[in-house]
């Protein structure tokens, strides 16, 4: 297990994913704003939430990187395409399991069953996060493949 590689490259891969996601958002491809979504779990101020959310996202990304690094260690090699494959698995779980479950735990996210007393202002992602734009699944798949590829490439280089 490459602990030093995990510690450093996990941050690099997560930062790359975040940058790609923000780029896609600015380009009008998706309304997913991961720092905002994660940060509003701890604060209702959108500006502070983005800062907090960026930190939370880095930590979460580091957690996922641990899984990738462990798989690479188990298989005895790290390659870009293996990282990309893990990225596909990762995004599949994220889109079909993690994001749809988010309204159940997020204090400021409405659910599809929200009623008049709901003061939540974040809309729920819906199936495959399609509520955030029809291109959201494609963007999300692309950035997670990028995440896995970056991790695989960097760990391979060691």
């Amino acid at each position, binding site marked *: 297990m490459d602990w030093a590689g995990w510690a450093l490259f996990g941050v690099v891969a997560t930062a790359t994913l975040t940058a790609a996601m923000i780029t896609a958002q600015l380009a009008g491809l998706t309304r997913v704003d991961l720092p905002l979504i994660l940060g509003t779990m701890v604060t209702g*101020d*959108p500006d502070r939430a983005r800062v907090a959310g960026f930190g939370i996202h880095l930590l979460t990304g580091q957690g996922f990187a641990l899984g990738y690094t462990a798989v690479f260690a188990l298989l005895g090699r790290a390659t870009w395409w293996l990282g990309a494959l893990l990225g596909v698995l990762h995004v599949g779980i994220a889109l079909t399991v993690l994001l749809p479950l988010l309204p159940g735990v997020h204090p400021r996210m409405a659910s*599809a069953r929200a*009623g008049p007393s709901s003061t939540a*202002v974040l809309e729920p992602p819906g199936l495959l996060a399609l*509520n955030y734009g*029809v291109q959201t699944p494609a963007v999300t798949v692309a950035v997670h493949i990028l995440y896995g590829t970056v991790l695989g490439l960097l760990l391979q280089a060691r």
Partner: protein
Amino acid sequence: MSQVPAPEPGAPPAPIADYGLLGDTRTAALVSSTGAIDWMCVPRFDGASLFGRLVGGPEAGTYRIGPAGPAEVVERRYRQHTATLRTTWVVGDRRLTLTEGMVAEVVGRLLPSTLLVRRLTAEGGPIEAVVDFDPRLGPGHRAPRVRHRRSLLVCEWGAVAVSLACAPGSTLVPGQPTRVTVSPDRPLTLVLATAHREPLIEVEPDAAWELLCADEAHWRTWIAEVDPELPFRDAVTRSLLTLRLLTYSPSQAPVAAPTSSLPEQLGGGRNWDYRYVWPRDASIGVAAFLGVGKPDQARGFLAWLLRASRLQRPRLPALFTLNGLRVPAERQLDGWTGYAGSTPVRIGNDAANQHQLDGYGWVVDAVWVYVQAGHRLDAETWRAVRGFADVVIRRWREPDAGIWELRQSSHQVHSKLMGWLALDRALGIAKTHPLSGRQQRRWQAARQAIAVDVRTNGFDPERSSYVRNYGSAELDAALLVLPLLGIEDAGSPRVAGTIDAIRTELGAGGPLLYRYPPGHDGLPGSEGAFLPCSFWLVQALASTGRRAEAVELFQALLDRASPLGLYAEEMDPVTGAHLGNYPQTLTHATLVQAALAIRSAPSG
């Protein structure tokens, strides 16, 4: 129990104003005074129709419970400050009452997302009633796969399923009206539950009734929070409650109306799908809810506006879906007979692709009102506002489709005025938010240029009135917002002249106004008077020192509400019949704003 013959297929439809609104802030149903739900979509406002007889004819499904024979409606009203509707019929010396509503608060509990509860009670002795449950899904009027599970009737169409529970238990068959006897000591309770991509959740009828009663308490609390000093409070709170029922809670998006293709002219082709969200409506709603002391609701509208516009920013589309996505292209439904033969019936809306300059004015004004109320904008919201203002600078010289969504663009004076408003309000917000000096100067220059342009090309000095288009002699009732903008002093002769000219030339009798000379929009046929314009007139009068006239006009408009206090978009000036999609968010939002203007106007 016994079967009864189906109603005559060619029977004339109930007047639009006969329908009451039931809703849970996720979807809605329209129910006539015969107890027939003739419109309801699942799982949400813009979903497939489950009961569509209102515009689809008998094949499109209905759900009626009521007296089996001839009966007279003697009372019909919402329970005070709730969304629960009561209809009472007299049958001989006996009375039959239908109490019905949807359970809005289902979050955090094992309940279906749509739970429609209907209870029949009898007084004076047993009464024969009828249950006609005939659900048909979507444009193709698809009949369900039916099964009975214990006392539960289950209808399925793949991802969508509905169940109907009945207490006391009885065997109901979809499409076959069934007679039941309701006794004073045995009310009949029916519970409709829906499921979409999830298992059905069964709720016992008595438990569902308790939930509905608990929901009423929520609504009463909600209304109790509204400013107690509001003038015409009962009418205004009914409008507020209607606006809330038409706000899709999961995204806080206010749907323009829960219906599609109710006609603007009986038998005509001006039939549009309004089950989408217009930024203009949300913006007016922000001011309305802030004005009555409901900041959370206003914040919700604003948050939705900013989220929805994110993908195409800084361009502001004319309308969105409930989740802020692109509205589907317009198409006509084959085999749908239309309301009173008014075809085509359409779903989707092509106005989504139009350039409507006025939209920027409404939205930036809403943000400004929010800031004026003491709220601060986060960085992204302010960035979005700056983007909208920059679009106005780039595009104000172009012709646009304007507020009336004309299919032929032109230089509309109202649009230019709203462009001016966008820049003026953005500059107002900039007083408390960071803006570069260069950008500020650009906005100021453009604002001045629009003012000069519109005064030069959009004003008729002979009539002392602003006109509809550059070079046109026609008027536009949307110009009644003029005294609220600030481009002209509210007491100026130009403002008074515009108000009076519109009242004279676009007057449709009584308090009613046409939005522009009827039929002058390039579409075949004509249309009714446009109700929001009348409420804008109230607002204009109140804000120019003519409060007494405003109050008189407002009262005359309240007299024209449906028996349940609801409004469509338009009204036939001759018959007083409500026309167009119903009930209408814009009409109810402008009603609230008119009342607020009366409140603010100095009396005497």
